[in-house]
């Protein structure tokens, strides 16, 4: 299947290219809104700061483009790392007026630190699936994924059991946060599946195929 990866200068595409090819799919770089009609799977990568990514993505998806894309139930979007965070409204990382794509009306918070846990949260951490489904399946429950971040969707913001169709939590020290979720055809992970060995490949295949 053709897998679109958005290229608006908010992240590295080469890791996704290599990973997508390795699991037997075709990598397609999405550079303009007209490219969107060619793919039913769209990945939003994210490296950088919230304000920068929010600006780039809001510009790209102007005129309800993303909502229209998601209105087709055959289409799926996957936000990765900062690409997950910008699906939300605001972040502690950005000034108060800066809005993300606001598909969900809550905010991203800075991780809290407690010795010996450190920030940024860098490295491999376990995901603990709270609600499973076709995306988050038991095969990857308790497995490790690669994280690099200082901000996250913390588990105080809303009633996640009610809100998400599927989700997992992870911990950095005593600070728990949402590490992946699915809500309808919106998929997201705070970790980097493209960097997460076979567990990452497995999850990407679920996003694409299941």
């Amino acid at each position: 299947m053709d897998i679109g990866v958005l290229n608006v200068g908010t992240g590295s595409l080469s890791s996704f290219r290599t990973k997508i090819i390795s699991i037997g799919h075709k990598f397609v770089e999405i550079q303009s809104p007209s490219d969107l009609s060619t793919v039913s799977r769209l990945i939003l990568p994210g490296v950088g700061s919230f304000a920068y990514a929010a600006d780039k993505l809001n510009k790209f998806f102007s005129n309800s483009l993303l909502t229209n894309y998601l209105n087709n139930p055959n289409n799926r979007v996957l936000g990765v790392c900062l690409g997950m965070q910008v699906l939300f409204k605001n972040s502690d990382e950005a000034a108060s007026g800066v809005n993300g794509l606001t598909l969900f009306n809550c905010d991203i918070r800075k991780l809290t630190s407690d010795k010996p846990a450190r920030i940024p949260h860098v490295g491999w951490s376990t995901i603990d699936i709270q609600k499973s489904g076709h995306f988050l399946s038991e095969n990857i429950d308790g497995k490790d994924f690669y994280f690099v971040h200082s901000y996250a969707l913390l588990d105080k913001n809303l009633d996640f059991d009610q809100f998400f169709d599927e989700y997992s939590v992870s911990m950095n020290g005593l600070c728990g946060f949402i590490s992946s979720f699915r809500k309808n055809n919106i998929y997201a992970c705070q970790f980097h599946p493209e960097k997460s060995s076979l567990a990452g490949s497995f999850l990407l295949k679920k996003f694409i195929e299941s």
Partner: protein
Amino acid sequence: MNLPKFRIIPTILKKGPSVVKGKNFSKSRVFSPLLPVLKVFQSRDVDELSIIDVSPCTETTSVNRFEWLRSVSNIITMPLSVGGGIRHIDQISQIISMGADKVILNSACRNNPKLLEDCAHYFGSQSLIASIDIKTVRGKHCVYDSWEQSIVDIDLLELIESVQLLGAGELLITSVNNEGLMQGLDVPILHYIAGKIHIPLIFQGGASSLSHFDDIINYRSSVNAIAAGACFHFTPITPLEISSYLASKGFSTRSTINSV
């Protein structure tokens, strides 16, 4: 306490198209082209990989210096950090756009603090590893300049503090005395600096047998990863064997699935 898993990070020193390895940062010898070494680490499914370009810095701000990364990111998919002669923010931008997750800045920690600040600002602290080489002379732990091969007159603990304030997301500490000798980790340095670090610490220099890792068991809460070069180039020991050994000693290490 759910800390990130303890990482074992193979380090590759790249010079031109080849992988080299030295002792105490000198007398380097070529032993393999780069790409086959990368393929081995990819197939071994390592936690993370570092590549340091030790080629001489002729045009110091040239973005062409890291052009070789293009072929690398077609081969490997593990987390990757890249360093060696990074002098300019455009180089950092290029390195990250070509698939590296993090850059490693060493000389800039001493000579160009603004580069650390800019890197943290534009790419986030999580993409910045500050690297400090330490040489111990008559019992004193000194900052070492590996390009000039000389001691630098800067207080080590002050430098460690300043790079953290500048926004470094991780610290890579290398023992020059132990580097490449495969005689074990430099515990006195670890003991000296451990309490001063509040970001993740990668420690490097001298690890080459499983028993060498016994030395860090008491430092589990201070060290987040061990990096090693010669160990993986010149001994049959694999990163996975070290991880399994550490797991048997109570360390929490990575668990992944076996097939897709």
